[in-house]
């Protein structure tokens, strides 16, 4: 209904006169990949301000797209549009196979995307655990799925019974990340995921992103932490003036690793893998059996529909990578890290206190998050 006024005209039709929205199939995206996001001259208004003034963007499954641009360029709105929260006031758009101009499809879309926004989406008066439980239930997830996530985000300790109002900004961020991880969306929309986090947390975010992609997810992130973001992004998109100005498929200024980070296409499957642990260790625990206790059970994986309408569907399903390949990919992240310092951690608090001792870790890695925290921080000094 947003699409037309009473006379069948597009609501902002006269406005976008020069836009010449194409009618046919739009973009094929990358060969062999399902198109996840497809925007054509998308316009999105905040009140009366055109935050997005005609965005063209195509994102295929498995991509990690970095959005760059000055403040107020429209990055956040673009993410909200893809999440189905911001309205599509003009142009066309399809995300995960859901038409953005249809309210019903947008509702469906919202359940399949995860947005890490500036707002934390947490209730101040509740403890971390209560918040997570509430959101898990609100998302119709099994409450049992919360516990491992708490554990992985090092929230299973003292912090779980602390009210969110008493958390530091970084810890709050971590809690809302935990909610996101619980949901295990197919499309991750991260708005400044690195902001407010310490080094440890940023590492975790990076690992999380890579991990999400390895298991069939797609990531869109806006970040000002450019060096770090470009390292993991497979592509950089510059947003300015409410439009996508330029896209660099090779990963703008990215490191070789960034470019290599492109993983082989993953066959569409429910994303069930456990995320990396806080403290950025290699994810050595195998993904649980898909289907058994999967939080996505009950939500039909609508992957088949993705891109079908706009003609971006891959012709042949690529072979699914073996478990070893995935684990190896996840392990790469660890290899890039400095070796953990085995010195015992005393959980020294910095400003945000995120370095507190985490959950007991598997012996394979040896050190707890506290020591990793130290090691991470000292690494440059030692090497220099």
């Amino acid at each position, binding site marked *: 209904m*947003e699409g037309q006024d009473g006379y069948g005209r597009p609501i902002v039709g006269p406005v976008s006169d020069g836009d010449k929205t194409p009618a046919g199939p739009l973009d094929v995206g990358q060969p062999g990949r399902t198109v996840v996001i497809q925007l054509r001259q998308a316009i999105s208004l905040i009140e009366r301000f055109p935050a997005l003034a005609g965005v063209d963007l195509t994102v295929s499954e498995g991509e990690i797209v970095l959005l760059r641009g000055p403040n107020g360029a429209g990055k956040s709105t673009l993410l909200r549009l893809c*999440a*189905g*929260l*911001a*309205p599509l006031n003009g142009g066309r758009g399809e995300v995960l196979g859901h038409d953005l101009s249809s*309210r019903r499809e947008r*509702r*469906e879309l*919202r*359940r399949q*995307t*995860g*947005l890490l*926004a*500036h*707002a*934390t*989406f*947490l*209730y*101040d*008066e*509740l403890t971390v655990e*209560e918040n997570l439980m*509430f*959101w898990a*239930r*609100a*998302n*119709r997830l099994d409450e049992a799925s919360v516990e491992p996530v708490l554990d992985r985000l090092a929230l299973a300790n003292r912090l779980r019974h602390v009210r969110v109002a008493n958390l530091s900004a970084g810890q709050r961020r971590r809690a809302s990340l935990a*909610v996101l991880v619980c949901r295990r969306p197919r499309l991750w929309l991260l708005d400044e995921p690195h902001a407010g986090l310490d080094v440890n947390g940023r590492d975790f975010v990076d690992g999380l992103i890579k991990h999400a992609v390895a298991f069939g997810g797609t990531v869109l992130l806006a970040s000002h932490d450019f060096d770090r973001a470009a390292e993991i992004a497979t592509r950089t998109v510059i947003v300015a003036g409410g439009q996508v100005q330029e896209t660099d498929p090779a990963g703008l200024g990215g490191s070789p690793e960034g470019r290599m980070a492109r993983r082989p296409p993953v066959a569409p499957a429910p994303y069930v893998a456990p995320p990396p642990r806080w403290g950025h260790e290699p994810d050595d625990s195998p993904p649980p059996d898909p289907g058994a206790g999967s939080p996505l059970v009950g939500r039909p994986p609508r992957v088949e529909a993705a891109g079908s309408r706009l003609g971006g569907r891959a012709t042949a399903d690529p072979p699914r990578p073996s478990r070893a390949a995935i684990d190896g990919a996840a392990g790469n992240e660890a290899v890039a890290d400095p070796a953990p310092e085995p010195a015992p951690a005393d959980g020294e608090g910095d400003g945000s206190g995120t370095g507190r001792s985490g959950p007991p870790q598997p012996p394979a890695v040896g050190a707890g998050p506290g020591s990793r925290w130290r090691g991470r921080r000292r690494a440059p000094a030692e090497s220099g």
Partner: protein
Amino acid sequence: MTVKDLRIELTSRVVMAQILPFGLLILILFGLAISPDLVVVGDARRPVIEEIAPGLFWLTVLLSALMALGRAFALEADDGNLDALRMAGLDPAGVFLGKALAVTVQLVAVETVLGFGAFVVFGAPVARPGLLAATVLLATVGITLAGTLYAALAAGLRVRDTLVPLLVLPVLAPVLLGATQASRDALFADPGVPGWSWAGLLAVFSLLYLGVGMLAFGPLLEES
């Protein structure tokens, strides 16, 4: 969805510590404003008391309900949580019921204390407790259902605090009327007086808003 009200309840415990005294304060202020005799006099059948006590009580409840409602939606608006609720893909009708139920629970708690206060302050005897209980329950449900619906209209707006009373109070006029009449009958009148018909009106009102709220909450919750 019952989960949700539990959560909200948990959070709102903090608030109850403010709304409740507020209600009591209003009750006392009413007593002061109307006549000093009212407070002193025990169960002497003063017509003024009989006329006024139920009305005052329900007015107080209405004002407290407004605060509770405002609080209930301020919770969601605080940190973009309405967005998150929408992301969760919850059934709007469920959200509506959850919200309303949470406020109802709070309001019943407030009413219990207020009623006790009114009993002490105004010294009203209860002739028909059954009718009174039914009235309190039905009226509360009516207030919260309608109130939740209208509070959602203004959710997340800067003008919420002023707009909600403007919208809700006229709508709740029948509830105020029915509750006042019914509880007056329950307190003073002989069993012959048709107090139950007023309770019936309250029930109809509640049912109506139950249906309307469940239907209409979807479009309301849905931004854009």
